């Protein structure tokens, strides 16, 4: 475990860490406990903004895995991990599987947990088949691409396939 840094002012454990970049690029670090930080008014009051907090968190957690994560893209919806990082929004339900290595540390920071323990859909595990859903999701992307290419015969074929899969579900 890292040794706790103590407050420059009073010696209590410090929770506020500031790095001042001074003229000429020299860095000066300041460590304070919450009470002293408040007294010195170093913390500006900020409105709570979830998406900016999220942006900051997504940026922070990416460590040594960056290269691997940066190359990741979802085969189902096509979103790249880097796009998710920039926008803060995922592309499809399957991303939670594909980006799991990148998401878990993020979820841990945001929620202090990585596992759901609440309500479950009553049909889950019976009628719902995750593999079929992933397949349909992928078929939809191919359908979309076919429409964009104006390959209507293929589009019609894919549409029927999606319908039959959905009906079977």
């Amino acid at each position, binding site marked *: 475990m890292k040794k706790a840094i103590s407050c420059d002012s009073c010696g209590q454990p410090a929770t506020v860490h500031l790095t001042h970049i001074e003229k000429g690029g020299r860095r000066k670090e300041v460590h304070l406990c919450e009470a002293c930080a408040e007294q010195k008014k170093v913390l500006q009051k900020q409105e709570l903004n979830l998406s900016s907090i999220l942006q900051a968190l997504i940026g922070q957690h990416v460590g040594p895995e960056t290269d691997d994560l940066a190359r990741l893209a979802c085969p189902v919806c096509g979103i790249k991990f880097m796009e998710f990082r920039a926008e803060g929004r995922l592309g499809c339900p399957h991303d*939670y599987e594909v980006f799991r290595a990148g998401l878990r540390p993020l979820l841990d920071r945001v929620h202090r947990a990585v596992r*759901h*323990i609440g309500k479950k859909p009553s049909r889950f595990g019976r009628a*719902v088949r995750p593999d079929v859903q992933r397949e349909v999701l992928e078929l939809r992307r191919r359908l*979309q691409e076919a429409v964009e290419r104006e390959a209507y015969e293929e589009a019609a074929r894919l549409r029927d396939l999606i319908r039959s899969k959905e009906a079977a579900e």
Partner: protein
Amino acid sequence: MKLDDLLKNTGEWLRGSGPDSDVVVSTRIRLARNLADFPFSNRASPLQKGEIESLLRERLLRIDNGTRFSYVQVHSLNHLDRQFLVERQLISREHAASEGQRGVAIEPQESRSVMINEEDHLRLQVLRSGLALEEAWQEIDRLDDLIEQRVNYAFSEEFGYLTACPTNVGTGMRASVMLHLPALQMTRQLEKVFRALQKINLAVRGLYGEGTRASGDFYQISNQVTLGKSEADILREIREVIPQIIDYERKARAALLRESRPTILDRVYRAYGTLRSATLMTSDETIDLLSCVRLGINLHLIEDLTIPAVNELFLLTQPAHLQKLQGVVMEPEERNAARANFLRHRLNKN
């Protein structure tokens, strides 16, 4: 559905009754849900968004929950009508402003509504007057079950209900309680309360959700965490903290009356007087003055006005409501005159 029909009422949540309604205005729970086999709304093509919208609209309209939903296609509404729904808290600002095929299903009492193609495919909402977390949860849980019988939700054993933004994943639930805290504001004790709330991971926001300044001393307390806690735990955490805040606010009100009676009387009567006689009134000023009047009623300083009546004025003096009531589109300056006129008429009846 004709939006103008909504104008005749104000929605159940503004009723102003319910437990602790001197401090608690309303309780709201929302659930984020997505279809398993479509990309999230932000990543869906216009064609796919259309498919999602028509599929969900059709399923929602089939639900018979005692009452039935009416449906509004938000993309085909003009700016004023969208704003009108935002003011009634039936859709979010983002839903009003975004693009593509989207809509909202609304129940006659406006206590239940479902947005389609917001950030998530489905955003279910239950709004209740006063402090009613348990009732609101039961109601939204039942609605969620009814929808789930008709569609396949994106759900994983590990991460729960899968959402476009990882801050909502898990339960997909945001429960919030809207509080009116004028006395804590006047006695400068709000900061202290909010810091304590943030320590236990509860968020505090102004009246109309994220990124808005707290107008009229209305604050929403809501959960931040959606993963790794059950719905019951999340609700319990909020339920435990609200009575303390109510207690602080009531004590601050009593202290104001005891220690600064002349000041508080002046503020309340000055606000009431201004609302009854001004000829130009912005919506920000209206909200601040009505907030003082609301406090005055709760302190029994004003006897000829009721909380439901004031709640209604908060809503009806909002820009879109004012224009719908007058039946014309108005520039801000015209609105200020119309708003003052409306308030004078309403408050000088007796």
